[in-house]
């Protein structure tokens, strides 16, 4: 009899864990709206799960765990407020008023999904510092612990914790509203959200410093966030960004060798590319492009899609890629985009044509400190047999890189020049 009870309890515990993984962020998002405060909501969330651990083994798992948790969390928070006020007799009237003025009661799935979107837009509010937007999004929307975020960003945990505290203080004191922006503001505000997601992805995909090229967890989180956003708000550029991340991430297994060295696109074993991610990415790019309201992320995804379509490097449609870079340059003029276009032109028309474009960018005074500009120049000079120029540019790129595997790649290329 007792054994049965223990087994039952264990399976309930597993259920509570599973519910935590699938529902805790939704419950938190709704509690923030109901309680109007991030810290109070986080505490209420923990209280709600503590109550679930006590009551579910005894009373059974409720038919709608999410709404049970929201109600429990809200009850605990209000109860806590009441108790706190009791020790503070001066505020008795205020406490009664606080509880009487209850926000609209939780109702249905639709408002829960709205709450998740509210949470995303609040964490990515442009009035918050950029690094705080990232930290807050990973913590509140993705549920990462402060230490995990600190490790991923190679930032001391206290610094990161302080960033989060400051952001929450600003949300409260400056009264940043918990809402999805109005239609006329949406495009601009969505840009900030997309930038935060892409930043998280890139930090995971190509860490700007440190010894590993890929920090999978962050890229995975960014893709999860991108999927969530597309689910909640199927805007073309949100689809474009998700497609871009999926297509880049599909090459993950092929990007590094067994010893952790960088493998360039041309040399990658394309059978290692994740075909399922590619298929999903291609579907999303097509959908975004057909909307006619796409932006820079969609175009970049379309470029990645051309690469993904080529079964081998030599089959790449470079003409199509140059054309897409032309569109991207019109949409988003920048020397880095120009550099990428120059590399594509070199692939289409030969290294001489590409080098002329790269040299023109550098001669203008742009990208002088950008390691990839010098690496690209070195590669083009090498192909033209201009070994001395290639060596000088590889050496310049080496002085600019902060990433260990990239350094090894450049050193390898330099050594190959002397052969």
């Amino acid at each position, binding site marked *: 009899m007792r054994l049965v009870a223990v087994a039952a309890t264990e399976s309930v515990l597993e259920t509570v864990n599973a519910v935590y993984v699938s529902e805790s962020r939704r419950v938190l998002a709704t509690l923030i709206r109901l309680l109007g405060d991030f810290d109070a909501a986080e505490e209420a969330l923990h209280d709600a799960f503590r109550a679930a651990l006590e009551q579910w083994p005894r009373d059974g798992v409720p038919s709608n765990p999410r709404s049970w948790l929201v109600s429990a969390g809200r009850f605990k928070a209000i109860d806590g407020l009441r108790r706190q006020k009791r020790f503070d007799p001066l505020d008795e009237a205020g406490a009664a008023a606080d509880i009487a003025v209850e926000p609209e009661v939780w109702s249905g799935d639709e408002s829960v999904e709205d709450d998740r979107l509210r949470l995303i837009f609040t964490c990515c*509010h442009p*009035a918050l510092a950029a690094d705080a937007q990232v930290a807050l999004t990973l913590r509140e929307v993705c549920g990462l612990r402060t230490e995990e975020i600190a490790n991923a960003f190679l930032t001391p945990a206290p610094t990161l914790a302080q960033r989060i505290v400051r952001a929450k203080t600003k949300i409260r*004191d*400056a*009264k*940043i*509203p918990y*809402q999805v*922006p109005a239609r006329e*503001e949406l495009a601009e505000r969505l840009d900030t959200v997309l930038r935060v997601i892409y930043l998280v992805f890139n930090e995971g995909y190509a860490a700007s410093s440190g010894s590993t090229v890929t920090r999978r967890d962050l890229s995975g989180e960014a893709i999860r966030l991108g999927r969530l956003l597309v689910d909640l708000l199927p805007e073309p550029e949100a689809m474009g960004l998700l497609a871009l991340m999926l297509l880049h991430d599909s090459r993950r297994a092929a990007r590094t060798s067994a010893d952790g060295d960088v493998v360039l696109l041309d040399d990658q074993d394309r059978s290692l590319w994740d075909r399922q991610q590619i298929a999903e990415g291609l579907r999303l790019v097509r959908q975004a492009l057909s909307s006619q309201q796409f932006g820079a992320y969609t175009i970049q995804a379309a470029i990645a899609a051309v690469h993904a379509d080529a079964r081998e490097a030599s089959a790449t449609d470079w003409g199509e890629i140059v054309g897409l870079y032309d569109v991207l340059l019109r949409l988003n003029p920048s020397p880095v985009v120009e550099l990428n276009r120059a590399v594509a032109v070199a692939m289409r028309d030969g290294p001489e044509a590409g080098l002329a474009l790269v040299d023109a960018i550098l001669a203008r005074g742009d990208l002088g400190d950008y390691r990839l500009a010098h690496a690209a120049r070195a590669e083009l000079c090498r192909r033209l047999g201009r070994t001395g120029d290639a060596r000088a540019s590889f050496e310049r790129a080496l002085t600019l890189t902060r990433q260990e595997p990239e350094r090894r790649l450049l050193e390898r290329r330099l050594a190959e020049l002397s052969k």
Partner: protein
Amino acid sequence: MKYLCLVYLESGKLHAVADRECLACGDGLRKSGMLLAAEPLYPVETATTVRVRNGAVSVTDGPFAETKEQLAGFYLIDARDLNEAIQVAAKIPPAREGSVEVRPVRELNP
């Protein structure tokens, strides 16, 4: 919620926006019921800084720090939240010449 919108301009741009336009902006905000007060200021050269140290009043010329942009005026507004305050700040004419700092007003604890 009250917000103080502080208008900052470079010295050379203190008169870049016509008074007429600023008056119109204030009138519009007043009509919407959001404006509590708004005033333009004379240039920073006319400022006097007052400090009290150990009970003694010290008076000095100007502000203590030289900055490129100076406080040129302010709007005290009543807005629903920061988003609404930002919308108002974006409509203050000198925002296109200099910048507007939006600061939430704190309640004093009795």
